[in-house]
Structures are given as C-alpha cells and as structure tokens.
C-alpha cells in the first residue's frame, strides 16, 4: 500500500507502484484536470507541481512521489484565482484549452523559482509545454503579466 499526498489530502494506492502518477491522478483519484498529451515528457500537458517543482506526471511513477507534496491544478488555488490563472483569463490565452492546465502549472512553478522572469527566461522555462493551437504569444505575455501585474 502506497500513501500519497495530493493537494493536501491522503490518497492510498494498492496497485502497481510503477503506475505513472498521471494515470493515478486521472483514472484512480478522479483528478482529471491534469492531461495526457504524449506519455513521454515531451509536451508538458501533464505538468503538476511536486515540492515546488514542475514535473511531468506521465513519466513519474506513484512510488516516486511518496512522502512528497503533489499539487495539481485542482489544488493550485482554493478559488482558482492564482495570479497565473487570473492573467490567463485577462489575456484570453486559451484556444482549445487542453494544454493550458499544464502551461499554468509550469508557469506557477516558474514564478516560485523566479518571481520576475525576463521574456527570454519565460520562453526558456515554458519550452517544454506544447500548445498545438499556438497560443504562445499570449502565454508569454500572461506569465509576464502574472509576475509583474502589468
């Protein structure tokens, strides 16, 4: 039996300890905000925050996050009003929206590490997150807005 701490809550798992965290979150715990996009840490759609760092849940097994704090989009902010989420809405960032949770989690992790990133730093930090609709210009501006208020 593995016990995980997700968004401050204990979750138990008695299945395959190698199960990718992504599928535990989505299919076993019902936290469907985190998305599947590639399964190989190539697209960032499954990004969650573990102990203040962005990780790809698709290549992280449940046993890797035992005794660590896992934060998903559902736990990012109690009312969904994290600065990044607000900036996203202010600038109408999403198109289809599917990658946006991963983008938001990556951006939130970036701002923990670097509260005032430059545009180049934003582009570097967000380069692991693919948006096929092509919302990059707005993503860059929204991360900047979230970090500066302007």
């Amino acid at each position, binding site marked *: 039996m593995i016990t995980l701490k997700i968004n401050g809550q204990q979750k138990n798992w008695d*299945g*395959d300890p190698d*199960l*990718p965290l*992504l*599928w*535990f979150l*989505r*299919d*076993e715990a*019902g936290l*469907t*905000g*985190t*998305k*599947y*996009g*590639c*399964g*190989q840490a*190539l*697209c960032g*759609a499954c990004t969650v925050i573990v102990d203040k760092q962005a990780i790809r849940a698709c290549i992280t097994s449940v046993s890797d996050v035992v005794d660590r704090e896992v934060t*998903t*989009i*559902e736990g990012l902010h109690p009312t*969904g009003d994290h600065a990044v*989420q607000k900036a*996203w*809405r202010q600038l*109408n960032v*999403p*198109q*289809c*929206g*599917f*990658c*946006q*949770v991963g983008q*938001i989690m990556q951006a939130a992790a970036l701002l923990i590490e670097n509260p005032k990133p430059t545009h180049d730093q*934003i*582009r*570097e930090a*967000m*380069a*692991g*997150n*693919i*948006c*096929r*609709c*092509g*919302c*990059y*210009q*707005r*993503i*860059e501006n929204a991360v900047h807005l979230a970090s500066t208020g302007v």
Partner: protein
Amino acid sequence: MNILTNPKKLRGFERYVKVDNVSRRSILKGLGLAGGFVLAAPVMSRPGLAAYQTGADKMPHGTVVDPRVFVAIAPDGIVTIVAHRAEMGTGVRTSLPMIVAEEMEADWSRVRIQQAHGDEVKFGNQDTDGSRSTRHYLMPMRQIGASARTMLEAAAAKRWGVPSTDVKAVNHEVVHSASGRRIGFGDLAADADKQPVPSVEGLKLKDPKDFRYLGKGQISMVDLRDITVGTARYGADVRLPGMKYAVIARPPVTGGKVASFDGAAAMKVSGVEKVMEVKGWPWPSKFQPLGGVAVIARNTGAAIKGRDALKIVWDDGANGKYESVAYRTQLEEAARKPGLVVRKEGDVEAALKGADKVIVGEYYLPHLAHVAMEPPVAVADVKGDKAEIWGPVQSAGGTREDVAKTLGIPEENVTVNVTLLGGGFGRKSKCDYAIEAALLSKELGAPVKVQWTREDDVRNGFLHTVSVERIEAGLDKSGKVTAWRHRSVAPSIASTFAANTVHQAPFELGMGLVDMPFEIANVQCENPEAAAHTRIGWFRSVSNIPRAFAVQSMVAEIAKATNRDPKDMLLELIGSPRIVKLDSVKDLWNYGEPYESYPIDTARLRKVVELVADKGGWGRSVPKGHGLGIAAHRSFVSYIATIVEVAVDDKGKLTVPRVDTAIDCGTYVNPERIQSQIEGAAIMGMSLVKHGAITFKDGKVQQGNFDDFPVIRIDESPAVTNVYIVPAGPDTPPSGVGEPGVPPFAPALINAIFAATGKRIRALPIGKQLEA
C-alpha cells in the same frame, strides 16, 4: 421558447425543420465521385433578410431556424442558448450563441450555454469543419434571436394591451416607452412561449449600428474560467461508474490486419482485465476502425503497459511496400508528364514554347499528422439496442449515424454527447475512435473509454496528403507572365472512401489549384494520377497548404528572375480588380458556397496585400541576416495576406522576429477570436514549414511522438504576430477564419528566407536545409 425546461427534451419543432433527403454525409457525392455536390433540397429563400445566400442549406440536414430549438428562458430570467457546433478552440461555442443574444437583446451575463448533442434533424447540420460555422450560421442565429425577441415583445404588448410596434426589447427587458412600463424576460417567458413563432420572412433584424456584442471582441470564451481551473471537460475527462479503460494495438500498415496474437504476457500486467481482438474494416475503410487487439484494464496506464506486452503477428496487406522516398520520385515523375486537365484557358503549350523565358518550380510537401494536444478518445455505453457516446467529435451528427450503422441500431437510439475538443484540425471529423468504443462496450457489456496514445495518433491517423506541385511560368520579353501551367499530384482524400482513386476530388482541386486568381492569358491546371497507400484526411486548410506554397513561392521566384519587388510582382499577377471567371472548370468547388455570394474578387485579394504591406512595413530596412517575405491566398472564401520577417544566423538557425497578417473575412462576429486563430495559424504554419514530415518505410509511419514529429515550441515561435482585420460592410457575407491563416504562412516564411539568405527552399520541411 421553452420555459422551465431543458430544450433538449422539447419537441414540436418538426414543422419548422427543413430536412433534406440526402443520405447523411453523402461523402461519395460530396467528393465529386458522382459529379459534384448533389443537392437534394431547394435552398431556403429568405427574401428581404439577407443580401447573400450561403451553402448552409446544402449541407446534410441544412439549417434549422427555430427559437424553440435553440433558446429557453427560465422564470428567473436566465436565458439558455444551445451551441450546436463543436468547440475546438475557435470560440464557436461563444460566438454563435452571442449572435442569438445580440438579436434577442439578452444580457450576456444572464446567458448560459448548453451544448447540443448530435441531432441534425433537430439542430441542423453539425459538421464543425470547413471554416463554416460563422459563415453558415450568422444569419440563422440572427433570425433565431430576432424571432425570440419578437415573441417576447408580442407577449409584453398583449399583456399591456398596446400595439407590439410600441414596445421594444432592450437588454433583457421589454419596454413600453410611452408609459415607462418595463418587464423582464423571465416574467415574460411563459406568455412568450404561447406566442406563434414568427415567419422568417417578416422578421426585423437589428441595425448593425446598434450591436452591443457583434464585432466588438469584448466577450471572452464561455469556457475560459473552466479551462484555467481544470474543470473544462474534454473527451478523456468523462468518467462513468464501472467504466473500463482500453487501448488498442492497431495494424501498423493501413489495410493490414491481425494474423495471430498472444495476450498471455499482457494479462499478467497488474490491472489488466482482458485482451480481445477488435473488428477492423477492409481498406478503404472510410471512418470505420482499423481493427487490432484491445487491452482492457482498470486504468489507462495499466492498459498501455499491457499493450506493450502483447505479441502480435500482423498481415500487412497491399500497402506494406509504401516508402516515402520512392513515392516522392513517383510523384515527381508524374508531375513532369501531362495529366488530367482540370482548367484550361488559351493555349498554354504554345505560349510556353513561344515564351522568352520559362521558369519552373517543383515543390514537395510531405504528409503531416494533426497531433491535436488531445489524442483521439471516446467513451461509449452500449446497452441492448441503445448506445450513448461521449467524445470530442467535430461531427456529432455523423458520429451518431456511423455508430448507429455499425451497431445495427436506429439512429434515434444513439445519443452523442459532445465534449470540448482538445484541438481538432480535421482529425476529429472522423469518428473511428467513437466506433471503437461502441464496439468494445457492446462486447464487454460495460462503459468503455478508448484512449489513443500519441503514438497511435501519429501512426494510425488520417494524414494530410503528400504532394508535388510543379509550376511552369512563361514570360514574354517585357517580363510579363503569359503562360501558367500547374500540375498538382497528390493522393486524394477520396481514396479513404473509394478504392482505386487516383485523381483528386473537386473540393481538393478547388483549394488553390483551379481557383488560381492571376490575370494570365494562357492557364492550364493538370492533375496527374497518384494512388494512396495510407488513410488521407482533412487537415486544417487541406490542399491549400501545398497550393499556396507552390503558387506564392513561384511569384517570388518570378520576381527574382525579372528583378522586381515580390509584392509588386504579386499585385501585377493578381491583376485588375475583377471577378474571376472560371468557365473552363468542371464542378468548380467554391467551398460549397454559391459563386454569386462568394466570387473570387481580386479587388479584395489586392486589398489584403496592400493592407499588410502598409501595416507590416513592407520594404522596411532590416538588419543583416534578416529578410521579409510575402504571400497572399484566398481560401474558405476569405482573403489573407501575410508578411514574415525571418532572421537566419551564420549557423543556419532560423528565428521569426515578426509576423503581420491581414484578413478579409467579410462580416465578422468575434474579432478577438479571429486574432487568436490567426496567431495560432502562424504557429501551425511554422510547424509544418520547419519540422513537419510524416514518412513511411515498409508501409509503416516512421514517427511516433513529439520527439520525431516536432511542432513549434514557445522558444522558437514568432516573437510577435500582428493581425489586421479588414472592416466589412454589413451586407458582405461572412467567410472562413479557422483555416485560412495557415496556407500563406509557409510561402511567406520561405520567401523571407530567400530574401535573407538567397536560398530557395522548394521541399518542406526546412529541416537542416539552412545548415548546409
């Protein structure tokens, strides 16, 4: 209107519904295999309401213009408007209901959106593709809103005993200005419901100068908040009690099948419950599943791990020799010989012979995969002779029909619930994944989710075609182009529906080949033969990608050869402002639109070129290693011109400091979403021009994920994309937005690389060509 009720459950709409008797998705007819798109019903006439006609009523099941189907008002005043098209990022779930709200004077903050299930008899056509939604539904949605407003006004007038001409709906209330009385929509709902639905012909539409929402761009997508907090529901987010999770190993070669398999090792994987063969259909298989072996598990991760442990022997079938390098040579050889003539003006052969100079450009564009961020996925629950489907489908009505047909049950017994789409780009117009889920659910007697992995998506999709475009331009002594021969060779989408297809269908030929708008005396377009060896499907902007690439590259090549400015060359070729006549083209495809409403108008094409040149600073001086390129193209009956600025460093590293695009899409509804579509089209265009290539060896796709089929990431994306929308008169018909941004981007970028480096790239993707 339906008070207090869920509009889904209401009936009584039948007499307002126009139903045609075309068998749905009469694909073969639509593909021109029976000689062009066949109409089965007259176009609905709406005298006095529209200055234009669209092709909306030629679509399967046409349009429905009935407020009782689309609008409900609750006693508390909340107005529910049905969104009957699929949301995949274009904003259609917001834009179409917003049109209804505008006309009925509803206050947007008191409007709720309800997604329609698949039911085209009730809602009209639901195929969300072809950049059609606003084009086909601006007027019907205005009529629905105006009908609702008229019924509310009539109800208030009756209650007050005054003529209905004395009252007016204003922002969720009806007002009698003479007496100062006013009453809210909620209080009027029950009375309005008893009013007759007014005839469409008598409706009074709002004066566009009074619009509060249309054309303003002030309203965000209705799903915006849900998307940012993770509650927006996509196909994979549907969870049902007792649901099983499935992934399927599909034949790696199109048309292949399972020879034998061993699931013993898969069954030993923790969480795996069952391994079973899935039915496949013989090639060409239309939208039917490919078949294969399914692994059923308690979660998706276990199903994937189980699938990895399967041992399958495949029978590859006839396409097992498909190989991309050889196929390219084959296409090139075909393009160098005469082919089926699909447009002919003057005598091109003689004109080329007599030309002072002949410039030849041969362009190659490989297969592409859609790779929407959400791979195909669907949930099905089949019980007895009833089926319920949840999924991200572009074609809710088509999915319903195909699932019903496959299961052998009546269409009325199939409910298709449309979730948000995590991107579509044409892939999700084909519902094979929903049929797979239905077949498995029927077999297992439980709800099933079928999840496609990214590798499945790349290897088993419906790819964008692969093509060679060869253009020969003959010039006289003054440098004027007097001859233009364009041969386009590519496997057709029709091959997915009909065996032995070797020519492209009218709708493919009409995307940038036969509709070429240049003013040239001798023009010939030809379509030599090409057979398909994999599933070919619609990909955002379809054949316009190779055609615009070839034609707009050629313009710059001619400019270079005659020492002229590429923008001036482009305008010279477009020629005088006129309506292009294409009398020699049989079965001209005009995106399904009547040519009278949507002719090829070179004045509009010239205008976007001039606008983007002005706003984008064409001719401005740029730093060393930078260059500007321009391209223009009409597609989906919209006009677009793009300028790309590139920078290429001495190691061949490509960056894009700036993109400028002008679009004329006629009357528009939501400029904020138009802007986002054009921004995104630049990214998709850059992905295909820089990286995009699906290749085959031994019949199998050689790529599988974003490592070997890369798309543009934020650190290589254009620094800024500026968008300019041409203001249109109120009577200019709306035209496409979702797709037209893609085609001009690739040639504009390639032309910019030429300006920067002197290197002319004729084969996509760029790959390492700049490093040489």
